[in-house]
């Protein structure tokens, strides 16, 4: 009697499992454009932010067939693109995996993606003239290709970011010791991705050489964590990207050109923070496809995705 009930329960559980397994995803391709047959992979916030999916639709009339949330320009996105689980992805322009996998960056002629120039965001009280001069000298020398080359050393060759930072400062003639920042106590922070850690190390080493008393707080996390830390003064200096920080502080911001973004940022910043000169180096979002996909559909720019198949 009990066995029957048990067996019945087991059979019911099994049947439920099997039905649940059976519910597989169905293919939905409609619309007829190249993009409508594509699965797009990127971070969750790309779905909603202005220059993400809404921006692509507005500027290029591109809407993808399906959106798979992967990660923010990380290994999950790269693997999914490489293995064909997604057809197009949101990656960052300085990502070494674009080159190593032969991915193709689709051009952005209508400037959908805002400028993402690297710049230091710093507590007003700690931005003495000496500190400003030191950091502005770094920004003057930092360009996208240079930053990309440094990222290959850190990510692909697994070199120590601190050593890479020191070597770069020496190469650029920025390692001169002095006392222009002596007496300043600074906590330098970074977000939790390799490029930001590297930039924080560059700032820290240069300021140390100028006599500043530096404390490092690397890999703090995302903006939700470090922007409050900047506001309450537990972190004094962070490497930032002008477009992203503007979007974070003012979700309705529309500026995309480097100088416009920089100007808009001045108004959006909390009262105790300022930004210094921005570098030419940009680490912006890019729509990336594999070489095979680019050749198969003749894709060069994002606009090509809106063409009929």
């Amino acid at each position: 009697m009990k066995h029957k009930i048990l067996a019945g329960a087991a059979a019911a559980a099994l049947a439920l499992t099997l039905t649940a397994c059976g519910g597989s995803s169905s293919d939905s391709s409609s619309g007829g454009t190249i993009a409508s047959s594509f699965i797009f992979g990127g971070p969750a916030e790309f779905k909603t932010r202005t220059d993400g999916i809404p921006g692509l639709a507005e500027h290029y009339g591109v809407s993808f067939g399906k959106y798979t949330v992967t990660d923010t320009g990380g290994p999950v996105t790269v693997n999914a693109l490489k293995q064909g689980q997604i057809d197009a992805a949101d990656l960052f322009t300085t990502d070494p995996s674009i080159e190593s996998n032969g991915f193709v960056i689709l051009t952005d002629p209508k400037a959908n993606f805002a400028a993402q120039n690297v710049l230091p965001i710093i507590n007003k009280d700690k931005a003495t003239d000496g500190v400003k001069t030191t950091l502005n000298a770094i920004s003057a020398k930092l360009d996208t290709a240079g930053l990309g080359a440094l990222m290959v050393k850190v990510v692909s060759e697994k070199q120590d970011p601190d050593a890479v930072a020191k070597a770069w400062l020496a190469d650029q003639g920025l390692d001169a010791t002095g006392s222009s920042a002596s007496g300043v106590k600074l906590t330098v922070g970074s977000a939790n991705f390799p490029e930001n850690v590297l930039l924080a190390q560059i700032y820290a080493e240069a300021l140390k050489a100028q006599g500043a008393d530096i404390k490092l707080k690397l890999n703090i996390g995302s903006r939700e964590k470090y922007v409050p830390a900047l506001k309450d003064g537990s972190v004094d200096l962070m490497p930032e990207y002008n477009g992203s920080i503007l979007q974070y502080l003012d979700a309705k911001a529309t500026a995309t050109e480097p100088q416009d973004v920089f100007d808009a940022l001045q108004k959006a910043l909390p009262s105790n923070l300022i930004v210094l000169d921005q570098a030419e180096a940009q680490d912006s979002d890019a729509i990336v496809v594999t070489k095979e996909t680019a050749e198969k559909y003749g894709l060069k720019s994002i606009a090509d995705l809106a063409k009929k198949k």
Partner: protein
Amino acid sequence: MAKGGGGAMIGQVFSWLTDPAHWRDTALDTGITTQLLAHVRFSLIALGIASAIALPLGLFIGHTRRGTFLVAGANALRALPSVGLLVLLTVMIAPHFHGRTDIGYVIPTEIVLVLLAIPPILSNTYAGVDTVDPAVTDAARGMGMRGRQVLFDVELPCSLPLILSGLRSATLQVIATATIASFVPLGGLGRFIYDGLQQQDYPQMIGGGVLVAALAVTADLLLALLQRVTVSRGISGRFATKGDAPAGPIEGAITRVEVEAG
């Protein structure tokens, strides 16, 4: 944006949950219905595999009292960091699968969940069988029952409360932990928690958490019902009228053995 006090937030979470648009699938977003089913699917597969491994093993170890080190070993699995293991396994497994398949992400997720579900099921099954009063099994043997009969007719019914409580705690853990499937590009209710955080859409994030909690409570209630139906009243001491209740569970079990044997 989510501004204001806790009361406002509760209202926003409620309206997020009750907005029919959030329950449907679109090209961009996968709705609650689909993610709920995906979550149930991950959990059921993991619990099915874990039960298929841990139940027979626990019964065997408890019945023969051999290989008890396996129980201790399995308990050590509880200390595994789930997310770390998931990422490691994904990096190892996912590159082997090409094309439009998520199997390269499903396998690592299921391995993590199965490893999490095995310890409570195994140790409770073992403990349940192990702690059956020797007087009861001796009586069964004395009546001429064979080893297999003793296991399935005496030890299993007597240890059912403990076995099912192991299954219940495994179910709770698996449902709660299946949220990590969204660390790799899979669905499940964890999607809302993870995406809500990234999109700074906190009603969505909390709504996802509420759904996970509701699913866990529902599953636990179902298993409690299963336990009520399957466990012998001689064990649970739950009788229609109090006057009928025997002195204790063991006597109840013996009565049952007598009834079945006779």
